[in-house]
């Protein structure tokens, strides 16, 4: 991946255009948001891109051709048949108001819960990838097997705390929210014993 000082700083629109040119067919959705801050109302921009899983790693590689991206975190959301993963990156540090946040979203189908690892491109992604592996049960292809990082080593197998299905901690209510029935049931059982 390239990087370094004295490079040309691209506008967010131009970055999005580059993504559309190179990966046009696999971009599902994209937009640019900007936020006014302070009393002087200056602004910075964020780019949100939703991309198909098969071209996700290419998108990260494309990001790497602009500059070595700063990787922040992965957030996940179990939306039923798929798990929505959002990777938060940023480009261009070192100058006021020039940093651009780039948030790449992709959907991983539950039938085939696999994402490619980014650690060969960005070693700093290791911790976050191990987290989604433990919390969502997603296989990260290319990431070496290792003991649990966040959950206890003896944590129940095949239970993933952030899943909202039968593999999660709570069963689902009709509107898809956590209902905590397990806890209620458990309390009743305790009362019976007493």
């Amino acid at each position, binding site marked *: 991946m390239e990087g370094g000082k004295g490079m040309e700083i691209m506008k967010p629109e131009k970055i999005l255009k580059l993504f559309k040119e190179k990966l046009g067919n696999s971009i599902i959705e994209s937009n640019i948001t900007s936020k006014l801050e302070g*009393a002087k109302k200056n602004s910075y921009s964020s780019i949100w891109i939703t991309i198909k899983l098969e071209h996700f790693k290419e998108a990260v590689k494309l990001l790497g051709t602009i500059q*070595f991206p700063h990787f922040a975190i992965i957030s996940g959301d179990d939306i039923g048949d798929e798990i929505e993963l959002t990777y938060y990156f940023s480009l261009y540090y070192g100058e006021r108001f020039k940093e651009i946040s780039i948030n790449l979203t992709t959907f991983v189908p539950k039938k085939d819960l696999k994402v490619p690892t980014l650690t060969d491109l960005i070693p700093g992604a*290791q*911790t976050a990838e191990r987290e989604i592996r433990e919390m969502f049960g997603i296989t990260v292809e290319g990431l070496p097997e290792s003991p649990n*990082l966040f959950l206890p080593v003896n944590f129940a197998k095949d239970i993933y705390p952030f899943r909202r299905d039968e593999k999660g901690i709570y069963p689902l209510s009709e509107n898809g929210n956590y209902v905590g029935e397990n806890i209620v049931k458990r309390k009743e059982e305790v009362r019976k014993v007493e």
Partner: protein
Amino acid sequence: MTYSVPIGPVHPSLKEPMTFNFKIYGEHIEDVYLAPGDNHRGIEFMGMQRNPVQIIYLAERICGICSASHPFAFCKAVENASDIEVPERGQYIRVIIAELERIHSHILWAGVAAHELGFDSVLYLSWKAREVVLDTLEVLTGNRINYGMFMIGGVRRDILPEQVKVVRKTIDYYREIYGKIEDIFLNDPTIALRTKNVGILTEEDALRICAVGPTARASGIRKDVRQDQPYSAYADMDVKAITPEDFGKKTVGDVYDRIVVRLLELVQSLEIIEHCLDNLPEGEIVAEKKLVKLLNQLKRTKGRGVGRHEAPRGECIHSVKLEEAEAPKVWKARAPTYNNLMTWVPMLKGQQIADIPIVIASIDPCIACMDRVTIINKSNGKKSILTKQDLHKLSVEKTRRITP
């Protein structure tokens, strides 16, 4: 003969119990494996069953020191998701609290670093100096930590003219003693001996590991959210990321550079607070005073938001996804140490056992996780346990040994 030396994992009273597994040849560290996670409390899971206002107080308790940074980032994330504009006065008060927190955190770190080197008098003196900023925070918020100051759309308490006087007095106090602090940490030959060229993190490694905060800046990366994506009152002033070059020295990326960066940031924080007090705008401090109305608005919101804040240890990022429900569908919080974790590996490789405390402390994590150390002799399988005190003793002995 290579020994395996696990350090950690548990010290229940602290925020980040953690295990370090060292491969050691004599005094020389050959490799290190990290095993955190012993204190995972499932705060995000708890948050996803509460409303956003309740989450502020959970966020405040993610870390005992960054009790302004997490709510700052979280409130920003929710505001971005629901298009709430924070009144200007609220933005300035937020920054004042955040910078006071940075002062107390950096002085706390300086004291801990001195302690790790065996300079306990410096620990006591620097923590005595830290009391002043804690008292100031108490005057402003009612609490020394867990300020309860942040609210979605602004802050909960105004800063009154008599409180401004207290803050100005605090600034004067730190300006007065700063010379002494700098003299102790940067000119003392013993501290220089123990910290120069120890625990080096190169610029390339810091970039690849995505290090943040003073850890990255001490390696020469000019990265600071207050500079790169200025927010709140930071957007109105010229905050610059500080690297050792600003001190007129070449960047090495060692423990000494991390001390330099943190000390310079103390001065910077004083300037920022002063600027905020001088230019404090009049007006409201919070966008929506009525909580019920605010919660109703959030309940109708559908959208995503990201909030970033430069905490004392680096970029703190929160992300929320609101989907017309009482609780957010997704709440992801990432503290700076999460990214800085892996920097320990290149820093510790090639160092000595006695340098472990200061190198681990140098990125400003929770260092007291080094509760106990077991040295296993592979040839006879015998175990001997080194406590934190033993490790500390080793470090102090090294200071004495190398001091002329």
